[in-house]
């Protein structure tokens, strides 16, 4: 694995397409499996992609590009996790409610997960996807109990 300043390497449209295709492949693999935990590799791939977009401060802009690329009507300020999920899953199988739940769980993980812990372990430790989505709403949603940047374990 290489570490290199990526800001000097542009993220081309072809690269965006390749990343979305990779996530779509992960989604299809999850769909093909009967394992209850099969969704985690897909969610991990979404999490990793948006996390590095966030790291570069370009998540919203790239979410816009992804929505546009996939022919979705883009909103003014798309939520990046939800946008990437919309672009890489079947909207019939992943409805608005599920997408919102996954997006909230991933945003919660983005805020509180330790970099060395896997997404699957973190979400399971916190009680599952539903619990993480609910925790997001309580701690980071419209009426948060605490500030958005205070870490907890």
């Amino acid at each position: 694995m290489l570490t290199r300043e990526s800001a000097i390497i542009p993220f081309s449209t072809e690269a965006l397409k390749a990343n979305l295709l990779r996530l779509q492949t992960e989604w299809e693999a999850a769909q093909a499996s009967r394992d209850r935990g099969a969704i985690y590799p897909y969610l991990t791939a979404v999490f990793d992609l948006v996390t590095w977009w966030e790291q570069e401060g370009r998540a919203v802009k790239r979410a816009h590009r992804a929505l546009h690329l996939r022919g979705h009507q883009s909103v003014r300020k798309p939520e990046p996790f939800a946008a990437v999920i919309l672009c890489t899953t079947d909207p019939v199988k992943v409805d608005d409610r599920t997408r919102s739940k996954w997006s909230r769980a991933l945003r919660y993980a983005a805020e509180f997960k330790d970099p060395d812990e896997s997404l699957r372990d973190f979400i399971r430790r916190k009680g599952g996807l539903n619990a993480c989505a609910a925790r997001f709403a309580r701690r980071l949603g419209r009426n948060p109990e605490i500030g958005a940047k205070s870490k907890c374990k």
Partner: protein
Amino acid sequence: MEYADQALDAARLGRNGVHKARDLIFSEMLAQLEASGDAMRYVNSHGRIGWKATPSLRQYLTDLELDAQGDLEDI
């Protein structure tokens, strides 16, 4: 790294005396690998953006290795 060094040599040889800096050639190579779906960026445990092979490239290399092992056993 061997993969990277080969690409670096190829890039140098193909440019008729134009010697780009190693970092620039390396960056172009990474961008090409990313666009072709062979490399991806990620945030490492130190919070820095790194690069790694995509699952599809890793699978492809694993298949090649298994094929090579199979060929060796057939000899």
